[in-house]
């Protein structure tokens, strides 16, 4: 019995160590991301700016340009990763990701419409993209609702609505070929020139979403056993599923409205986290959140540094590094680690 107890403690200790390690990784990525770029700050400069402020060009760059950008990157990564875990859990489908519930298509069409049709109103891009993303996911839920949600119907409805809106995006780009270049940054997803106001937009969703998902983690675990089993264990099915879906949509919409269509994080990170800590959402949520934050901030740093002074949109770096890594996972351990 004592050996058994020790095993339990070891399993927990290992998982806690993973989460702690990821937290340390986040801090490291955060500092590295502040240091490197077209302006090379020294460690001591970064620490003095973070602790006591200062003035001059170095302070301006670190405090008003790099810091908000890094914080935004981390929050966007966190939101997309949590949204992905949540959706994969609710739909019990390893292919589910924020783009499935229309986030990308909704934000894409409304964002492209603003940038192409009303270029003067480009400051409205973020709120309009948010509205587009969130309302599209509501439309998809309405379409899929039939005495409750069925995951398959939800996914198919998402695919259908997404291709419908995708046609709209393509049409706009075909009719206004001269303005396409202004849209590209948004379509690919990037974080250049993000400021404190962007942090202000996404922060409330990141905090509220993380807290509420933490509370719902236990129920999501039960939902994974199947609808009937979950009900038999006392989970009110539709209200739980609806709150999880709304949370996932809100977080993804907030992320996409700030950073553009960064689709891949929400698919990749949950699978990496599942390989690290298994399928218990009480561990999976914090692991994915930290992993998403670290990954996106790291990719953004690479995007800034690798072809300096030209900056590559972070979406491209994400896909270039993420896709091969994902395929590698698929090839090695992933078979035993499907959700």
């Amino acid at each position, binding site marked *: 019995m004592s050996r*058994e107890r020790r*095993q*339990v403690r070891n*399993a927990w200790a290992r998982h806690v160590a993973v989460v702690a390690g990821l937290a340390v990784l986040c801090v490291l990525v955060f500092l590295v991301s502040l240091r490197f770029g077209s302006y090379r700050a020294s460690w001591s400069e970064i620490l003095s700016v973070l602790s006591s402020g200062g003035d001059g060009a170095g302070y301006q760059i670190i405090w008003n340009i790099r810091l908000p950008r890094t914080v935004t990157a981390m929050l966007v990564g966190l939101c997309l990763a949590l949204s992905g875990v949540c959706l994969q859990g609710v739909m019990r489908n390893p292919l589910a990701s924020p783009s499935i519930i229309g986030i990308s298509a909704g934000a894409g069409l409304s964002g492209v419409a603003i940038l192409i049709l009303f270029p003067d109103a480009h400051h409205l891009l973020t709120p309009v993209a948010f509205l587009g993303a969130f309302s599209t996911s509501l439309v998809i839920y309405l379409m899929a609702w*039939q*005495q409750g949600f069925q995951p398959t119907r939800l996914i198919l409805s998402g695919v259908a609505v997404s291709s419908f809106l995708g046609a709209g995006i393509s049409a706009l780009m075909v009719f206004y070929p001269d303005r396409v270049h202004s849209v590209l940054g948004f379509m690919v997803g990037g974080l250049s020139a993000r400021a404190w106001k962007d942090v202000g937009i996404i922060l409330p969703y990141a905090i509220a979403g993380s807290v509420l998902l933490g*509370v719902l983690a*236990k129920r999501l*675990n*039960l939902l*994974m*056993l*199947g*609808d*009937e*089993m979950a*009900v*038999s*264990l*006392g*989970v*009110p*099915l539709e209200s739980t599923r609806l709150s999880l879906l709304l949370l996932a949509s809100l977080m993804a919409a907030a992320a996409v409205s700030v950073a553009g269509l960064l689709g891949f994080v929400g698919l990749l990170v949950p699978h990496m986290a*599942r390989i690290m800590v*298994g*399928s*218990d959402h009480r561990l999976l949520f914090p692991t994915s959140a930290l992993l998403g934050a670290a990954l996106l901030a790291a990719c953004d740093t690479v995007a800034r540094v690798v072809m300096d002074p030209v900056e590559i949109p972070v979406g491209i770096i994400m896909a270039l590094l993420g896709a091969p890594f994902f395929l590698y996972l698929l090839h090695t351990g992933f078979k*035993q*680690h*499907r*959700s």
Partner: protein
Amino acid sequence: MPLKAEHLVVSYPRSSDVLHDVDFELRDGELATLIGPNGCGKSTLLKALARTLPCKQGRVCFEGRPLASFKTQELARRLAFLPQSLDAPHGLQVRDLVSYGRHPHLSWTSRMTSEDWNIVDWALAQTALEDMQHRDVDTLSGGERQRVWIAMSLAQRPRVLLLDEPTTFLDICHQVDVLDLVVRLNRELGITILMVLHDLNQAVRYSQRILAMAHGRIVGDGSPREVVNPALLRELFQVEARLLDDPYHGCQVVVPVRSLHARHIRREREVATTGPAKEAQ
């Protein structure tokens, strides 16, 4: 009476009624089994009793109260339901899965207390799973897995347990193992059990009461000897069968003789008129 169905009508979305006017009572402490051909509504009845399907007409009462008046969590503290063919998420340990059975007894914020863990230990002991409590559920055999799910239901400490085909997909040894466990839960712990079984001999041998269903209605209700007879088997399953006495268990054994299915009969006639030689070609 813990569970009572009154004029129950149930249908799936956009289809005709699956249950018509089902009326029956599950008595306290009994072990009852639903039998009937595929698609007769056995599983549907179980789901309606567990409130995973809504009733179109009529109602189900649990401990004298309409089922609809219970909160999901409140009901789950007294009534446990194990659906068919369950799948555990990858990498979940037996002990953790069994601990999910305590969920109905926890509030939003409270965590598992040592008393909850004692109940988990008790459920693991009842189902003889102590030795494998730290293994991943998906490394176990089918029979062991079924015991894990039953242990999870036990951790709910229910008064009534509904089991949908607990022995399907198990080999004969694990079937007997699971059914012996079910009988023990009923006799020693006093849990009222209603289950669906496909094997008539197991139904006859293990249950005190048989409910026979056909076309969404209950057509036979009573002790195995009262209900299971050649006439009922012909009506329910279109099969000609004889009943023999089992000298070891004091119950009867169903021995099927031939199918009375219309298609089968027609073919037999063809063989009779045209002769076996032609059939052989």
